[in-house]
């Protein structure tokens, strides 16, 4: 309570000094303003980028997804290429039977980008042969009233059914036509539309557009009608718990090597690698930008110290008068520390508003470049941290000048011209 009584006039005094020396104070604040603004804006934008990326990884099936893809043999196995059978449905059965960690396995055959036709309307899209397990592995579904996905019977009987991605359905059919039950031509062959895949409304426009593309047919139909062999392009595997990822990857690799007689004609990829590399980028960003902010804040501190020393030099007589009428060293210490704190808090507040401007501008530029990219939003925690840093810098920078003021001899100070 006592300290508060002493602090009040000190802060009022600091505000007055600020008002009396506007330009000088503003200049001395510039370092703090820059430091806080860059700190808050950069952390916010990096966080926003990270948010975008997490969304991207989620769209790719999340961390619980493992992708096995066909790959040419490594150099030391090249002479055995003739023995390579590629990935087949036998592998799928083997994994399903022997690796309980894998909860779903989706064999996929990519037929490629092909033309599809409905009554003269055309679209070009990717055609994927798959099984019912595609849905849980890719985290997709079919909304009620939008038909069904490929069934086990479709796989067994190699039926000519097709499920359309949401954007393909709107590209290919007029708005007043229900695509369900209609016959379309895929690469010249007749298919019946049995379902529409759920529509993804991501804030990431390009990405969700790509995700809403594509048509899906039974994997057995794809191999018998289009590719002509039993080679699978990829396997999508889903595990129940992301913590088991590494075990699952190891087991899948061992199982496949065994099935493929030791030939490494496949690669195993997880989203963790992508996420990890982004995390590294993120921390590198944070470190370098944090360094820039730290340097600005440091320079800001020097600026404040400088202006405080100048101010004390000009006011030696005032210090003498205050001491003569009864101010203790600690009173003057508090007064000048409060002045430094006032400058830095003001700088911090201005810096925060500047950072809002920067974030707004960055969002504007990014959304111009990539429409409907996720926006970065200011987090009050980061703002509070920025303000806290500026206060700390102000206080640290104020200590030495304030100590000098406190230690001045009143008689010498009063004689000062």
């Amino acid at each position: 309570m006592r300290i508060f009584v002493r602090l009040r006039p000190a802060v009022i005094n600091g505000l007055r000094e600020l008002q009396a020396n506007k330009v000088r104070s503003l200049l001395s604040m510039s370092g703090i303003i820059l430091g806080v603004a860059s700190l808050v804006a950069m952390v916010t934008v990096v966080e926003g980028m990270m948010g975008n990326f997490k969304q991207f990884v989620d769209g790719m099936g999340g961390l619980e997804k493992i992708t096995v893809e066909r790959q040419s043999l490594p150099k030391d196995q090249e002479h055995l290429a003739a023995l390579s059978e590629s990935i087949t449905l036998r592998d799928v059965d083997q994994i399903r039977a022997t690796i309980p960690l894998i909860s779903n396995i989706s064999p996929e055959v990519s037929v490629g980008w092909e033309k599809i036709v409905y009554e003269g309307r055309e679209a070009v899209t990717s055609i994927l042969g798959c099984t019912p397990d595609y849905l849980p592995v890719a985290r997709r579904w079919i909304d009620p009233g939008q038909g069904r996905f490929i069934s086990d019977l479709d796989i067994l009987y190699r039926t000519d059914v097709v499920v359309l991605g949401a954007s393909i359905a709107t590209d290919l059919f007029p708005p007043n036509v229900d695509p369900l039950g209609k016959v379309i031509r895929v690469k010249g062959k007749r298919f019946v539309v049995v379902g529409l895949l759920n529509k993804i409304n991501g804030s990431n426009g390009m990405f969700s557009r790509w995700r809403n593309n594509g048509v899906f047919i039974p994997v057995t139909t794809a191999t018998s009608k289009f590719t002509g062999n039993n080679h699978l392009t990829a396997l999508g595997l889903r595990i129940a718990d992301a913590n088991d990822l590494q075990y699952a990857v190891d087991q899948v690799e061992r199982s496949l090597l065994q099935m493929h007689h030791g030939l490494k004609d496949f690669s195993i990829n997880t989203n963790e690698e992508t996420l990890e590399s982004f995390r590294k980028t993120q921390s590198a960003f944070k470190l370098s930008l944090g360094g820039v902010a730290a340097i600005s804040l440091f320079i800001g501190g020097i600026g404040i110290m400088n202006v405080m020393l100048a101010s004390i030099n000009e006011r030696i007589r005032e210090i003498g008068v205050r001491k003569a009428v009864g101010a203790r060293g600690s009173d003057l210490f508090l007064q000048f520390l409060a002045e430094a704190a006032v400058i830095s808090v003001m700088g911090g507040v201005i810096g925060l508003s500047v950072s809002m401007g920067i974030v707004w501008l960055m969002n504007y530029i990014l959304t111009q470049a990539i429409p409907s990219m996720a926006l970065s939003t200011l987090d009050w925690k980061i703002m509070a941290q920025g303000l806290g840093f500026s206060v700390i810098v102000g206080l640290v920078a104020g200590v030495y000048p304030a100590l000098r003021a406190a230690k001045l001899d009143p008689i010498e100070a009063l004689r000062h011209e």
Partner: protein
Amino acid sequence: MGSLVTIRGLHKAYPMGDETVHALDGVDLDFDRGEYIAILGPSGSGKSTLMHILGFMDQPTAGSIIFEGEEVSSLGADRRAWYRSNRVGFVFQSFNLLPRLTVLENVALPLLYREDSDRKANEAAAKHALERVGMSHRLEHRPTQLSGGERQRVAIARAIVGKPSIVFADEPTGNLDVKNVDRILDLLGSLLAEGITVIVVTHDLGVAARARRIISMRAGKVQEDRRQ
């Protein structure tokens, strides 16, 4: 009138280059409450040093000072600050008002540093002190808007706002025109009625002549102590 200050064998020595300057060289003095004293002497006589030590701005090298019955010759800095804000007031030749503060705030300044500082009470006391010196019509003015005489009256208000035992006036009329000199000296003289001891430090015989007791100093010693 009771005894206010008793000084015995007061010494103050400064190192100056290789030599030691004896600003005060064995001073013995007694001051009573309500006395009007002038300390007279040329520069370098030790009169300013005596004022600084008696005004709790400086410490003696040796000797004893009994102030209101207590030995105060070797107090720490904070304790001396307490005496400055509670027991003494200063009036300077160059007024020494703070330019950024209003008249009222300047006068209230000594109370700000007291333990029991309270904004409302400080303001009331400052207003009262300004009334006492006839400056209550200029509360919200800045010192630069006042004439020299007015500034010195504000400075006197600041010196008496804390109801001190002693007011020190260091060449209080040195920067004033003739018309204002009398007014300020009258004002200082009127403080005696309130039991305040007024000590005017000056080298002006005319100013000193107003006091009832003139102490002449030379080379750090009391040369003459005359009551009139």
